[in-house]
């Protein structure tokens, strides 16, 4: 049999170092997997067994039961299925939208220079504030919104051009990431009022919109770094050969930034999948997501460890499968080949 620790190339580690790396990785896997294993065995325990103390191995230490699984999957039935479907729909759609919009924005911020006029932005903010104040004073929301847009358009034409101070690319990027600074607790109530006004409370569309807005900055920032690390020469030579910008993005930029895209997608998917507080405030019955179900297991009778374990396990399963499917794309080689050819 071939020695799995053998050295394969110049950049590869020596066999003892490789063994060391393997042991360290194995140790951390244990740290990661042990709590998961504990969730797994807890999901087969009865409340009595959990309360008696630690038991590690089913059939040896304790008699496993499917009670918790039956409770979550059969007795609760639709009450588990609905949040589950919601989580899948909200998580997937919001992260795909955020990834697409965010990657385009990131590419634009890396390769083009923008000068956003501060005067126009200030005017926009002023108009929104006007609409807000007018609504607060009792004007119908639609009328307030309409007149705000009108004011914005007129003033932007009339005086907007006089203010020539502008924001550069880095200011735009910083503004984007600053959206995440305010803790969810502070934006939850204003968002509740906002969605109440437009009638989207307890609707998964509200969640999707909010999560896209919340995750967009993360996509932009991560993808900006990946795009910036790509060699410019490839794109330039393609442009010289007459390829359009869309063609360049589609057949050069996207393929070689796949590792970054996959990693970013997984991260925003996980963020949307697991968000708790905003989902708690914006939904009541129809649009509830899984994190709320997990938290709900800490009821008046104390934490229902067994049910909670089942919920967490079925919740991470799709994400882990997704990670298994996508992991192969986080790998080297594509860029190197492109440069040689």
């Amino acid at each position, binding site marked *: 049999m071939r020695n799995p*620790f053998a050295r394969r*190339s*110049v*950049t*590869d580690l020596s066999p003892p170092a*490789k063994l060391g*790396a*393997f042991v*360290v*990785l194995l140790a*951390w*896997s244990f740290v990661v*997997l042990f*709590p998961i294993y*504990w969730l797994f065995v807890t999901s087969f325990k009865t409340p009595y067994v959990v309360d*008696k*103390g*630690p038991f590690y191995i089913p059939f040896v230490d304790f008699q496993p039961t499917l009670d918790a699984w039956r409770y979550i999957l059969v007795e609760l039935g639709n009450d588990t299925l609905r949040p589950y479907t919601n989580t899948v729909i909200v998580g997937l759609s919001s992260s795909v939208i955020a990834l697409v919009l965010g990657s385009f924005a990131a590419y634009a911020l890396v390769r083009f220079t923008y000068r956003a006029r501060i005067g126009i932005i200030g005017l926009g903010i002023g108009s*929104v504030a006007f609409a807000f104040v007018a609504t607060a004073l009792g004007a119908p929301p639609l009328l307030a919104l309409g007149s705000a847009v009108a004011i914005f358009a007129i003033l932007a034409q009339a005086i907007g051009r006089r203010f020539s101070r502008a924001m550069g690319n880095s200011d735009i990027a*910083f503004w984007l*990431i600053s959206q*995440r*600074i*305010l*803790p*969810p*607790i*502070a*934006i939850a*109530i*204003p968002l509740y*009022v*906002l969605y109440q006004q437009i009638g989207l409370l307890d609707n998964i569309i509200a969640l999707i*919109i909010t999560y896209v*807005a919340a995750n967009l900055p993360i996509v932009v*920032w991560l993808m*900006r*770094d*990946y795009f*910036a*690390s790509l060699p410019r020469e490839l794109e330039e030579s393609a442009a010289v050969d007459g390829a359009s910008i869309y063609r360049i993005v589609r057949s050069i930029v996207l393929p070689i930034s796949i*590792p*970054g895209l996959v*990693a970013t997608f997984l*991260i925003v998917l996980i963020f949307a*999948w*697991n968000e*708790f507080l905003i989902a708690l405030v914006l939904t009541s019955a129809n649009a509830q997501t899984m994190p709320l179900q*997990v*938290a709900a297991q800490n009821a008046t009778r104390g934490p229902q460890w067994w049910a*909670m374990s089942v919920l967490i396990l079925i919740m*991470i399963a799709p994400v*882990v499968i997704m*990670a298994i499917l996508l*992991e192969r794309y*986080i*790998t*080297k080689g594509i*860029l*190197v080949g492109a440069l040689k050819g």
Partner: protein
Amino acid sequence: MLLILILSIFPLVASIALSLSRLAFHEGGVDLKFIGFTNYQQLLFGLERSHFLGVLKSPSPLGWAIVIATVGLSAYAWVRAARSGRVRPIGLVLRLIGGALLVGFVWIVVQALVSEGGRPGALIVTLIFVFAGIVFQYALGLGLAMLAVQQVPWRRFFRIVFLIPLTITPVGVGYMFLMMTDTSKGPLEPIWVALGLRNFTWVTDPWLARLAVIIGDTWQWTPFVFIVLLAALESLDQEVREAALVDGAGRWQSFRHITMPAILPVTTTIVLIRLIEGFKIIDMPNILLGGGPGTATQSMTLQAYIDWNTLNLGRSAAIAYLLLILVSVVATVYVGFVRRRVTDLA
């Protein structure tokens, strides 16, 4: 973009209004009563100060030494900037203000931490969580990513497994660590018994409680650093490293001069994102310890959440606003001083 603008500005305006008012109940509904800056005043100087900033006592000798050193270093840096002649007057004034803020901040931290009978409040506890968390998560994440790009056996298994903690919802991670830290029914019970700690609870010692929160936070967030760095390391051009190694460069040299500069930009992004997210830490201290013992693990977001639950919406919004100001300052300084140095993207 317009949608984001609305989604971002509307809550901002609404929470300012909220933070300047108090919720009053009356028959048939609630009223927001405008009370000016009372909420802020209470948090920073009044009744709530011990809760928010901490119990401030006069510093011990070591504390004095730290304060004097900070004053000295800031003065030195300022004089050097002034003498260099490359900084405009406005820049000098801003630097003076920044230095004064820094000294004032160190003064508060020293009074709470390095003094007789002082106790840190939510603000300082949050900072401890954020900075300890970032250091551990980055060190672990980078180390694991460096190892996982090597051609070791079971490589795919490791890469997927390491991602798992991130996939669990933060509330769930909180409850999971509640199980782990239980000394009588948790899986680590034999270890506690062997150490004679069976009836010991984490909640008795403030620093052990904080350590428990930091461990949980690190377990959960190391995968984030790991996967981003993994993708960055994988997209590096291997030929440069190969050439360097063939030419006799050591592994440390090749890491220091080739790998590190290449992953530095994405490193600063990770730290920025973790900085911003870390300041919002709530689930771990809340579920694990309820913010206890006393208020030892109460982060700013948790304090805002508790005020929110008791319908003190005004103070909750005021805390959130102070957090916003604090994080904005930290993030601006970070982007200005660190990120602009290592990347032209800033």
